[in-house]
């Protein structure tokens, strides 16, 4: 028995003695700690920001967001013209670009990409589904003029079109690779981006190597590796242990700790994100505008943002995030004024409204939803609301909220990240966008004026003009308070000190081409 013990002890000691100085990441290879494994590496098949972070490094679109802005600049298209009526876009494509699989990038390839997504009769349409294809629902036809000229015909003028092209759903995949791999393209991706796909080990890593023939200058990094680490604590632990070089979506409390660490760099960048609670305007207490405003006044958003979120977000004023800086809105967030809130409740004859509050346990862009929900609940209770929380796992939650709150709940947490101020209000605030019509207006907000403004802004190609229209939308919606406006997220990331040229983008995309280590 003793001998056995000795053997065990000895072998353990030997094992420990032989340890490496663990978790040294290899030189010139960037290891990125992601929050989840990507669903697919087919840019047309995914919707999650987490997946987009990988995809923009493997693929290019016709256009892309200019560094540090949400403005569009040329990428695979060198230039483009928009017709007078705003319904025809002609792109002149970059020549001599090849996909990672060696095939040529040309007008046919562009047509293949959009036809695959949009036309049900396309031979490779069954490699979908393509959940964000509706971003291009106004595209009637994609025509090849010559090898390097392609024309998009829209059914109506659609202002966000270029911005949508710059979004990952507009990234161009290799038709040859799609033809070769069919449904498995998502695991065998091929694009034109600065990094070429190398390996995907299930739930362990996605690796991409430098594309030496990249048209926009060769990246310095030899490779990037994306590691999915689902548990936030484990991700933080890996960052502290040196197992990863970059960590995105740092939990707020850890970010504060990382700020003081000289070996680490904290990066922050506001983006077009809005965190809110949908209020059910069709029935119950929130049918009354005063009660909705009371709720907005009752919640101390400053405290939420500064304490619960540790400054990783700012207070939201309305549905249009300030990251769209060309929307010049004067609207200020609702102040924290519990007295006024109580007064409004009394005026509405609802001193103690009973409300059911749907809270989710996680989900993209939801920022500590349970803690936030609990804090909101406490603030609302303080002015007289009687709030019952029902919490659901994300997909159940989405299922419940998307079909409308009628008959079930009075408020529900929600968050959106977008690339254009059109998307969120268009999908969630129009009368036409009610759940019965397949929209996301789960609170049944309806204001004909807003409907008109949104329709107009959508078809206006002049950005300054659009800016004014959205400012008006912001103002009206703020006043009507169909939501409890809470926060705009400031996305963050932490890198080790030797990672250089790392920059977060307002688009929430993660461009790693110029990063060095």
């Amino acid at each position, binding site marked *: *028995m003793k001998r*056995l013990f000795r053997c065990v002890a000895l072998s353990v000691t030997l*094992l*420990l003695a*032989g*340890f490496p100085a*663990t*978790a040294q*990441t*290899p030189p010139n*290879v960037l*290891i990125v700690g992601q929050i989840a494994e990507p*669903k*697919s590496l*087919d840019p047309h098949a995914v*919707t*999650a920001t987490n997946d987009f972070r990988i995809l923009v490094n493997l693929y290019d679109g016709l256009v892309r967001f200019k560094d540090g802005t949400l403005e569009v600049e040329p990428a695979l298209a060198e230039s483009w013209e928009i017709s007078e009526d705003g319904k025809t876009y002609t792109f002149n494509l970059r020549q001599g670009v090849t996909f990672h699989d060696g095939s040529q990038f040309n007008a046919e390839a562009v047509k293949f990409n959009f036809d695959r997504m949009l036309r049900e009769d396309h031979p490779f349409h069954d490699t*979908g*589904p393509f*959940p*964000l294809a*509706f971003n291009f629902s106004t595209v009637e036809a994609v025509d090849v003029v010559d090898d390097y000229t392609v024309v998009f015909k829209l059914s109506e003028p659609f202002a966000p079109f270029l911005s949508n092209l710059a979004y990952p759903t507009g990234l161009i995949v290799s038709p040859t690779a799609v033809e070769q791999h069919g*449904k*498995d393209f*998502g*695991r065998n991706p091929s694009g034109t981006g600065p990094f070429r796909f190398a390996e995907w*080990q*299930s*739930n*362990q*890593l996605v690796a991409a190597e430098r594309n030496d023939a990249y048209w926009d200058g060769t990246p310095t990094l030899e490779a990037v*590796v994306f*590691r*999915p*680490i*689902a*548990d936030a*604590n*484990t991700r933080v*632990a*890996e960052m*502290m*242990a*040196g*197992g990863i070089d970059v960590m995105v979506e740092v939990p707020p409390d850890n970010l504060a700790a990382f700020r003081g660490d000289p070996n680490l760099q904290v990066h922050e960048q506001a983006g077009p994100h809005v965190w809110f609670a949908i209020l059910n305007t069709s029935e119950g207490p929130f049918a009354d505008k005063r009660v909705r405003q009371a709720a907005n006044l009752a919640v101390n958003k400053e405290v939420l943002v500064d304490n619960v979120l540790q400054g990783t977000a700012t207070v939201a004023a309305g549905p249009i995030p300030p990251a769209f800086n060309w929307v010049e809105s004067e609207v200020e967030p609702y102040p924290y004024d519990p007295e006024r809130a109580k007064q409004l409740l009394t005026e509405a004859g609802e001193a103690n409204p009973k409300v059911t509050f749907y809270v989710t346990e996680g989900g*993209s862009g939801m920022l500590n939803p349970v803690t936030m929900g609990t804090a909101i609940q406490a603030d609302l209770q303080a002015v007289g609301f009687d709030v019952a929380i029902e919490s659901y*796992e*994300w*997909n*159940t939650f*989405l*299922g*419940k909220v*998307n*079909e409308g709150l009628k008959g079930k709940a009075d408020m529900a947490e929600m968050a*959106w990240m977008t690339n254009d101020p059109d998307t969120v209000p268009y999908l969630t605030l129009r009368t036409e966008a009610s*759940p019965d019509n*397949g*929209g*996301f207006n789960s609170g049944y907000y309806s204001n004909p004026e807003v409907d008109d403004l949104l329709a107009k802004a959508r078809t206006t190609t002049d950005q300054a003009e659009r800016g004014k229209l959205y400012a008006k939308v912001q103002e009206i919606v703020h006043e009507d308070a169909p939501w409890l406006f809470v926060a705009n997220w400031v996305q963050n990331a932490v890198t080790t000190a030797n990672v250089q040229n790392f920059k977060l983008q307002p688009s929430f995309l993660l461009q790693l081409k110029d990063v060095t280590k």
Partner: protein
Amino acid sequence: MTAYILKRLISLVPVLFGLSIIVFLVMAMIPGDPATAILGSYATSENVARINRDLGLDKPLIEQYFIWISNVLQGDLGRSFALNRPVIDEVLERFQATLILAGVSLVFCSIIGLLAGVVSAVRQFGWVDRTVTFAVLAGISMPSFWLGLILILLLAVKWQLLPASGMYAIYGGGGLRDLLLHLILPAATLSVVAAGIIARLTRAAMLEVLRQDYIRTARAKGLAERRVIWRHAFRAALVSVIPVIGIQAGFVLGGAVYIETVFQWPGVGAMLVKAISTRDILLVQGGVLVVAASYVLFNLAADVLQTMLDARIRT
């Protein structure tokens, strides 16, 4: 013996069949659908309907089940909705990781559990017994995810002795040593509970065996106490503990969910949790079938081992 194994293997079929029906029903009852999971925030009813049509989810439940089962009988487990990948590929890749973790944990917990059980039986009511008993019960009393996080905090972050998560080092790894280093923490965490249970049972079995007549015979022969304990008493106690180890195998296989999450181990447990949340019904089916089948096989293996150790059962 062969007939017995065959019989047990055949009895696996109805169990798996029944399980597949349960899984189908349960998954059908869970609110939300795979389309919402695929589409995320953009799940418009129109989109959902289209995807359901693409995936064949608009058909009646019974029809869906029959399509699935007939495909399974032809060796096709279908395609995962969420991963857009053949279920079999994903399940096998994940199951391999689970087997490694479960196998090593099983060895870990068996050795530690048996050793602790024997020691505390031999030193019954002594301080060694009390210490072991307390340690074992303490191990059983700790939430495993919690223990895992603490271990990461200490061994990986503070002392930087072991990698915090994953299965292999990202670069320059891949060897057996690398795998072992990554295995230590999750396997140790996973073993704690199972080792505790095995230790308690071993102790009881040893106490029972030690008062058997044949132990007295062994002593009367003048055998050294160590030999009496290990070759005679332990050998006999092992026979009654082995089935329990088989059941623990099931726990280690399917119960590793928390540990796989905390240590980012690419195993089948975490995959199933994710698959349930994305309503990825075929992946859940595939995963549950593999886990259940291996559970039954582990138990079968335990029974066979037991039979081999005990001549009385054999004949």
